[in-house]
């Protein structure tokens, strides 16, 4: 297959992932957020599968399948249920100005490109592009965790951050399968723990707004 086309499709998928990270930041409805996260994971699995094809690395297909099954299907359904049981599915949260968050996000993308393109000088073109975009997704996930007040929003931010890590891992050649499996399962454990925590927080404070925790610790709200 044409080398340029292979690169273009990888770029398209990774760029799409960055775009969906922005949509996650933009989304202020709970179910919209979860659906968008499922899309994020779906595009990730496509991207990883394409990397498997481009690098002739069959074990990456397993990573893609895990991403698809676990993060695009299982975790969104789980979070859906949690949201319904916590009865917060009609909540709309606005954190700061959406415009400011977007500009910060653009700044982070620019930062990650400047950093990654300098650091990976001389590496393979496909890997460079992949790492730069993966770092953007990670930083956008961080930004989302910082700006969201709702615990579920923060969980989604954390998960999208982890998607960025998987994208980076898929771009780097020679990542052993064992590592990826353990990462995937640790994420699954994390979501269970977080799910339990959500209920505990809610029991204790009657809300999943993180400002309640700040007040509880004696900080100014």
């Amino acid at each position, binding site marked *: 297959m044409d080398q340029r*086309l292979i690169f*273009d499709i990888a770029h398209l998928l990774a*760029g799409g992932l960055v*775009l969906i990270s*922005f949509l996650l930041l933009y989304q202020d409805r709970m179910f919209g957020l979860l659906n968008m996260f499922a899309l994020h994971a779906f595009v990730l699995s496509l991207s990883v599968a394409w990397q498997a094809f481009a690098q002739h690395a069959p074990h990456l297909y397993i990573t893609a399948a895990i991403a698809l099954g676990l993060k695009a299907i299982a975790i969104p359904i789980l979070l859906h249920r949690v949201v319904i049981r916590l009865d917060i599915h009609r909540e709309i949260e606005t954190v700061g100005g959406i415009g400011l968050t*977007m500009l910060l996000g653009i700044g982070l*993308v620019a930062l990650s*490109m400047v950093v990654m393109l300098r650091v990976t000088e001389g590496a393979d073109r496909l890997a460079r592009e992949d790492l730069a975009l993966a770092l953007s997704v990670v930083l956008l996930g961080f930004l989302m965790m910082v700006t969201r007040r709702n615990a579920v929003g923060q969980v989604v931010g954390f998960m999208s951050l982890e998607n960025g890590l998987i994208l980076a891992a898929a771009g780097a050649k020679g990542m052993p399968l064992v590592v990826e499996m353990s990462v995937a399962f640790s994420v699954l454990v994390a979501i269970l723990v977080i799910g339990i925590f959500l209920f505990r927080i809610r029991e204790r404070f009657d809300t999943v707004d993180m400002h309640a925790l700040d007040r509880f610790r004696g900080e100014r709200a």
Partner: protein
Amino acid sequence: MALIFDIATQGVQMVLVLSLAPLLTGFVRKVKARLLRRKGPPLLQPYRDLLRLVRKDVVLAENASWLFRAAPYLIFAATWVAASLVPTFAAGLTFSWAADLIAITALLGSARFFLALAGMDVGTSFGGIGSSREAMFATLAEPAMIMMVFTVALLVGSTQLSTFSSFMASPDVGLRVSLAMALVALVIVAIAENGRIPVDNPATHLELTMVHEAMVLEYSGRHLAVIELAAQLKLLLYASLIACLFVPWGLARAEAGARELAIGGLAYFLKLTVLGLLLGIFETAIAKMRVFRVAEFLGIALMLGLLGTLLLFVSRSL
């Protein structure tokens, strides 16, 4: 001889955009009416409206200044020049080498500037509201447009529309996510600039939400006719811009023969039909948004433009 031919082609283009502009507006209205299962006005109705307006007397407000009378012609002239710079059926027309995409943006910006001034000139409250809203939208739409221009210019290495459309038609272009983002940004800007439905409703006269219609509320007679024609030209201009930047197939090359020009004309007509249909369907399917949401809507365009430009740095040029 070649020069005469070139100038003739350019003349055809200028007349073509002017004569097709009301037709496009009429077509979009017809599509919208048919989608609502109404019959809708005939396709030629915008021409009749313009004729009727030209025949009527102008009613001027007592305190209207010379600016109020001059503005329609200035707006029309700027828009017409901008529209004749966009390659419609043939690339490499004589005028298109005189100005690039940034110049077109500037021409449209000055047209808007005069429109906003004319809205405030008489001193009615409606005009003032319209002008201030128009200015608010423009502060977001124009940077988004410029970012979109930068995205395509970085890719092609030129801001010339003819160069760009020939690049887009060549296989070099490949599959680029930045171009998709630029396309969406341009569509959003086009919707906002033409006051189409999610941003402004071109069919109302009685609501506090109107923007463009509020500014031209005081105009009548031939002034109104000229302003309406300028607005229709602007719609055609954006449609041609989208067609020439992102679907340049069928566009006649520079130094093309008569046959190629005819194919180009036919392709242009088809593209306009498809874009008009899409606009009609989109407008029927969507509800008008609140004025204060428009900033967010245009913010998306700006963000897409910025992101598209950034993503270019990690694309094939690595």
